[in-house]
């Protein structure tokens, strides 16, 4: 079932077309500690995970200090003098102290605050006070414990396995090739909206791979999506690329903003900005995006297994990372990249309206995730059902299970 799935004109794609026959999973798939531990050890500790953008580390010595919640890993990403981005556990080779405390910055070297062991930006030990006390430790050789790091189209991925089973290129496969030159680097006005949630991470992932709820939960908050002719908001295009996938959410061609403030914000902000020279190449115009040129669309979402979704929007992109810290807790890390920062009071107002609008949409989704988890923990529902129109949820559950079992 790999490759491009064109929807027949007469009807929408259904699970049976893809031979995804498993129409339910046990509730414990979302609630059990055992399942979480399998995911942590057999997925998050084996798969390549997107964690940063290269624009965060433009110069030699630039570093970011990340907390990889799922693995309780303290990760330093640093650009070395040779231009390479490397990853390390933030843990002194001596007795384990977190060497770097700053969230981000630029450093010529890292010095442990405890006994002043000094590391280069390549992670190697440079000096140890009283080095003859440690005859087995070699400067220039030993250092901060490394984490495998790779870059795909400006996204920095890490892999916490001792030896990754696949290279990043192999892991991304066809999706990595297809989307390899999308111009993400042109979108540099970033808004970050991290959300700690009391839910299972897969509920939030699921919400962004089915259109079924859009016309109900978001009837008012995404009014431009709902289309009478597509009452279950089926995706006009879905693509499967091995364990990864992409889905397009359409829009209603007849929708016009009628509410005064929403209309003012659109006209004074985005419509006005559309008259300006584009800040860069347009993501949405790239031939790999929306290959059927369906018009209008709201977005195309690229799902990179296991916990990344990149949504290509008309004015930028959203980058979601889902980080479980237990069966019932997660961080939904939302990063929104727009093509330009506000450059007038009008565009600042438009951005404030836009942010308020997407916050409310996300609040609808995250609250469903939390209510869903409480409902499942209640213990009465034995199986969670996936409809004929929720084939991406079936695909994801199957992919995750296969990956845990070492089959994909």
């Amino acid at each position: 079932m790999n490759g491009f799935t064109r929807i027949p004109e007469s009807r929408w794609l259904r699970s049976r077309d893809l031979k995804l026959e498993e129409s339910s999973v046990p509730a414990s798939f979302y609630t059990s500690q055992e399942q979480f531990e399998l995911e942590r050890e057999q997925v998050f500790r084996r798969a390549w995970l997107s964690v940063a953008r290269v624009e965060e580390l433009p110069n030699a010595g630039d570093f970011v200090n990340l907390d990889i919640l799922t693995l309780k890993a303290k990760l330093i990403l640093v650009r070395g003098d040779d231009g390479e981005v490397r990853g390390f556990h933030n843990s002194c080779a001596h007795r384990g102290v977190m060497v770097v405390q700053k969230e981000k910055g630029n450093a010529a070297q890292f010095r442990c605050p405890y006994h002043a062991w000094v590391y280069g930006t390549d992670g190697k030990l440079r000096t140890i006070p009283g080095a003859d006390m440690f005859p087995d430790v070699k400067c220039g050789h030993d250092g901060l414990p490394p984490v495998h790091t790779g870059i795909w189209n400006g996204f920095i991925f890490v892999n916490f396995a001792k030896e990754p089973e696949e290279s990043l290129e192999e892991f991304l496969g066809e999706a990595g090739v297809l989307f390899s030159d999308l111009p993400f680097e042109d979108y540099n006005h970033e808004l970050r909206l991290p959300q700690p949630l009391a839910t299972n991470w897969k509920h939030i992932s699921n919400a962004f791979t089915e259109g079924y709820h859009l016309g109900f939960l978001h009837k008012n908050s995404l009014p431009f999506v709902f289309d009478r002719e597509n009452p279950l908001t089926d995706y006009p295009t879905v693509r499967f690329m091995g364990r990864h996938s992409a889905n397009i959410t359409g829009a209603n061609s007849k929708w016009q903003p009628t509410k005064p403030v929403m209309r003012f914000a659109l006209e004074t902000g985005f419509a006005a900005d559309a008259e300006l020279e584009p800040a860069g190449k347009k993501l949405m115009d790239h031939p790999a995006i929306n290959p059927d040129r369906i018009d209008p669309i709201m977005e195309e979402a690229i799902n990179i297994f296991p916990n990344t979704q990149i949504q290509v929007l008309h004015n930028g992109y959203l980058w979601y990372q889902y980080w479980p810290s237990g069966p019932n807790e997660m961080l939904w890390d939302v990063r929104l990249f727009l093509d330009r920062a506000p450059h007038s009071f009008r565009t600042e107002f438009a951005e404030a309206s836009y942010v308020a609008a997407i916050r409310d949409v996300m609040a609808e989704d995250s609250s469903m995730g939390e209510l869903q988890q409480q409902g499942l923990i209640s213990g009465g529902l034995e199986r969670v059902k996936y409809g004929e129109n929720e084939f991406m949820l079936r695909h994801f559950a199957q992919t995750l299970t296969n990956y845990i079992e070492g089959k994909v």
Partner: protein
Amino acid sequence: MSTIERGVSPSLPAAFEALEMFLEEWGDLETEDERYQLRRRKSLEDLKLFYDAVTPRLEDVFRHLDQFEYGPLPRAEQGLFRLALGLAEVAQAVEVIGHPSVPTTSAQHTIQISRPRSLK
């Protein structure tokens, strides 16, 4: 009868005096989350009062602000702009959600928004 001393209490530019009643609550809020939390604390009726008063003046507000270079504003204009930013939140309640905020969210719901690579 007013005992408010100009220059001490908040005030708005001339022609926007009718909106001064909203300044005390909305005029000092600096972040999206502060405006969101105020929106959540208020009743929909209160939010509608604000919405009905500010919305018809929105174009006037920005025509006035258009005269200023984008950046720090004089105090009166800053108050006016913050009312407009408040409306960005309030309009979500009145025009879109039909409640002060998404009714299924928990009382503690908050999203701290940051702009790590803002060009501002």
